[in-house]
C-alpha cells in the first residue's frame, strides 16, 4: 500500500480524500494556490505545497508543477478528485511517465472514455444504445451544421472534455448554432483547458440516471447501483438521490449490466460512472462515462455501505475488490444537496466573500462533506461548491423530510447560498412524488423563486438586534448630508495577497 498520496484538489473533495487516506494510514500532501493559503482543506494534510497563482491554469491545472511537487515530496500516488485535472489524459500520462500512480483509470482508458466522442464509438460496439450525433469533433462549422440538419433541431453542443454542464449549449435553430458553438468553446477552454466541442441530438425532458461502477485490475467488476440526477439547474446537478424513484428492478438490472459492459469494453479500471438519459418511454441511452470520483458519490456510499474513495486507492495500489455483485444491495434511501455560493435573489450570481457565521446540521442519518469554516473568505476563482449535505433514512419519504429539516438547520451567513432554494425543491409536491425530469427547475420556477414571506420575522429580529444587542450602532449619529459613504466590498478590503505566504 502507498505511504504518501498527493491530493491535487481543493475544498470538500480534497478533505474527503484525505479522510480515506488517514483511515488507511497513508500520509497526505495537500496543494494550494496563493488565494487558498487559508483554505480548510489544508488543515487535513500532513504536508502542504503552494503550486502557484490563483488562476486555475497557473495552479490546480498546472501539470508540470504538480508532478514536480509529487516527486519532490516523495508521493507514490496522486488523487485528482473531481474537476481540474481529474479527467485530463495528458496528466494521467505525465503521472505514468514520472512513475507516479494516478488514482483512476489508465491514460489509455481515459482517452477512450474521457473524450465523449471516442467513448460513443466504444459503446457502440457493446450493444448499448447511444444518442445520434457527431462521431468526431470538427473545426469546420459546416460539419456541425450538416449534423444538426441530419438529426434535426433541437441539438446540443457539448465540450468533448466536459462534465458538469460546462461548455454545454442547447441549440433550437440554425440561427443559434454558430454563437452557441463559440460560447461552448470559450467555456470549455476555460473549464477544461480544451476548446473542443461536438454536437448531438437533444433528448427532450429526459431523466438523468447514472450507475456507479468499480473495476479492479484483476478483472472483477461490480456496479453499486444508480444515482438519480435529474434535478439540475443550467445542466448542473444540484440534488441527487438513490434509489431512483423511476426505475423498477428489471430496468435497474438491465442498466447495471449495460454500465458494466461499457466499463469492460473500455478496459477501464478504478471507479467510474456511466451516465444514461432515460426518456418518457423508459428507453435509456448511453450519455458518457465520468472517469473520476463524482461529487455525488456519497449517496452511493450511504446506501451500499461501500467506501468508494477507499476502494479507488486499494485498486490503484493493485488490490483486488473485497466484494462481488451479489454482496451489494441498496439499503434505505439517500439524498444529496449541493450547497453553492450563489444568490437565488439575483439569478444565481456567484457570491464569494466572508462567511460570518456557520452552523452545520448533524444528527441521525446526516452527513456533511464540507470545505468551509466560519471566518473564511470564499475566493471568486473556483467552482462555487461549498459543501454537500447528505441524508439517509429507511424510506424516501423520511429521507426527504430529513433533508428539508437539515437544510433549515444549515446556517451560512455573510455570503449568499442556494440553501433556501434547495429546501424549496425538496418541499415541492413534484419532488416528493418523484415525478420529475431534467426540466424540473424550469417547470417549477414559480414555486422555487424566493417568496421572502418571512420578511416580518426578519425585520422584527433585525430591529431587536439593533436595539438590544448593539445599541451603540443604533444611536450612532447620522452622517451629515452630502457626505457620501462608500460601502467597501470584501474585495476592496482584502488588499493584495502575499505570494505563497504560508
Amino acid at each position, binding site marked *: 500500500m502507498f505511504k504518501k498520496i498527493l491530493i491535487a484538489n481543493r475544498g470538500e473533495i480534497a478533505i474527503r480524500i484525505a479522510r480515506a487516506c488517514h483511515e488507511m494510514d497513508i500520509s497526505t500532501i495537500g496543494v494550494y494556490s496563493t488565494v487558498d493559503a487559508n483554505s480548510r482543506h489544508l488543515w487535513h494534510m500532513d504536508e502542504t505545497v503552494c503550486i502557484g497563482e490563483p488562476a486555475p491554469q497557473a495552479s490546480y491545472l498546472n501539470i508540470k508543477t504538480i508532478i514536480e511537487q509529487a516527486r519532490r515530496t516523495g508521493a507514490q500516488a496522486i488523487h485528482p478528485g473531481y474537476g481540474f485535472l481529474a479527467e485530463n489524459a495528458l496528466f494521467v500520462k505525465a503521472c505514468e511517465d514520472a512513475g507516479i500512480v494516478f488514482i483512476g483509470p489508465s491514460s489509455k482508458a481515459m482517452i477512450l472514455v474521457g473524450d465523449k466522442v471516442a467513448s460513443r464509438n466504444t459503446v457502440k460496439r457493446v450493444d448499448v444504445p447511444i444518442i445520434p450525433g457527431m462521431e468526431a469533433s470538427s473545426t469546420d462549422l459546416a460539419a456541425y451544421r450538416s449534423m444538426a440538419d441530419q438529426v434535426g433541431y433541437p441539438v446540443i453542443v457539448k465540450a468533448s472534455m466536459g462534465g458538469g454542464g460546462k461548455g454545454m449549449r442547447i441549440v433550437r435553430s440554425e440561427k443559434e448554432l454558430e454563437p452557441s458553438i463559440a460560447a461552448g468553446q470559450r467555456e470549455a477552454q476555460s473549464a477544461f483547458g480544451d476548446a473542443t466541442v461536438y454536437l448531438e441530438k437533444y433528448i427532450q425532458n429526459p431523466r438523468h440516471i447514472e450507475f456507479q461502477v468499480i473495476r479492479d485490475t484483476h478483472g472483477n467488476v461490480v456496479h453499486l447501483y444508480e444515482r438519480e440526477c435529474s434535478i439540475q439547474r443550467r445542466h448542473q446537478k444540484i440534488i441527487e438521490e438513490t434509489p431512483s424513484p423511476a426505475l423498477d428492478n428489471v430496468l435497474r438490472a438491465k442498466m447495471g449490466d449495460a454500465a458494466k459492459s461499457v466499463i469492460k469494453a473500455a478496459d477501464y479500471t478504478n471507479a467510474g460512472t456511466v451516465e444514461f438519459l432515460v426518456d418518457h418511454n423508459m428507453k435509456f441511452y448511453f450519455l458518457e462515462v465520468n472517469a473520476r470520483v463524482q461529487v455525488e458519490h456519497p449517496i452511493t456510499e450511504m446506501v451500499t455501505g461501500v467506501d468508494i474513495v477507499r476502494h479507488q486507492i486499494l485498486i490503484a495500489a493493485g488490490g483486488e475488490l473485497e466484494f462481488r455483485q451479489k454482496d451489494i444491495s441498496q439499503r434505505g434511501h439517500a439524498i444529496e444537496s449541493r450547497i453553492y455560493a450563489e444568490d437565488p435573489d439575483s439569478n444565481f450570481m*456567484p457570491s464569494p466573500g466572508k462567511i460570518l457565521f456557520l452552523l452545520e446540521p448533524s444528527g441521525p442519518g446526516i452527513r456533511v462533506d464540507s470545505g468551509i469554516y466560519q471566518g473564511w473568505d470564499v475566493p471568486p476563482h473556483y467552482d462555487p461548491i461549498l459543501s454537500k449535505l447528505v441524508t439517509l433514512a429507511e424510506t424516501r419519504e423520511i429521507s426527504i423530510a430529513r433533508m428539508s429539516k437539515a437544510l433549515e438547520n444549515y446556517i451560512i451567513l455573510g455570503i449568499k447560498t442556494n440553501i433556501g432554494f434547495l429546501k424549496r425543491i425538496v418541499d415541492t409536491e413534484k419532488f416528493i412524488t418523484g415525478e420529475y425530469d431534467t426540466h424540473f427547475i424550469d417547470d417549477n420556477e414559480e414555486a422555487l423563486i424566493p417568496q421572502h414571506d418571512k420578511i416580518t420575522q*426578519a425585520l422584527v429580529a433585525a*430591529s431587536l438586534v439593533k436595539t438590544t444587542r448593539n445599541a451603540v450602532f443604533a444611536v450612532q449619529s447620522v452622517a451629515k448630508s452630502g457626505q457620501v459613504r462608500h460601502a467597501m466590498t470584501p474585495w476592496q478590503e482584502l488588499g493584495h495577497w502575499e505570494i505563497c505566504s504560508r
Partner: protein
Amino acid sequence: MKYKFEHLNKTHTVEIKKSDGGYQVTIDKKDYDIVNYSGHDNIVSFKLNKELNNIYYAQAGDTIYLAVGGDYYSLVLERGNVFKGTGAQVQKGDSVQSLMPGLLVKIMVAVGDDVKEGTTLAIVEAMKMQNELRAPRDGIVKRINYKEGDQVEALKPLVELEILKND
C-alpha cells in the same frame, strides 16, 4: 427606536418600543406584539402571533444577515438619506460595471466603437460562470479601464460610454 431597512431594493420602516410583556414593533405602519424575547450573539428568539421564532443573524457594516426557518434575508440599515442601501446596479449613467468581482475574459469592443443597446461589451468570469456585460443604451465607447486577463472589482466602471445625444 426607528430604523429603515432595505431588502431587495424595497425600504421597510420599523419602529420598536418596549411594552409591558415585551416589545411592540411597527413595520410599515402595522403593529406586532413580541413576547418571550431572548437575544444572544448569533441567535435571537421571540414569539410573534404565538409562534416561536429562532433566528440566526450576523452583521457586517450596515448589513444584517438573517436565516429565518430556511429562508435567507440580507437587510441593509439605511442611515438618514445619505447612503441608500447597496442598490447594486449594472449600469450607472454612462458606464458599465460588473456586479461581481472576477476575471475579465474578453473585451468585445474598442475605444471609438459605435455600440447599440444590448451589444455585448465584455465578458467577466467568476466561479467558472461567465457573465456578459451589455451596453445599457446606444453610444460610443469612450474609455476601457481594464485589459483582458485583468481581475476586475465589483461595481468599478469597466467600459465607459459616451451617450449619443438625441436631437
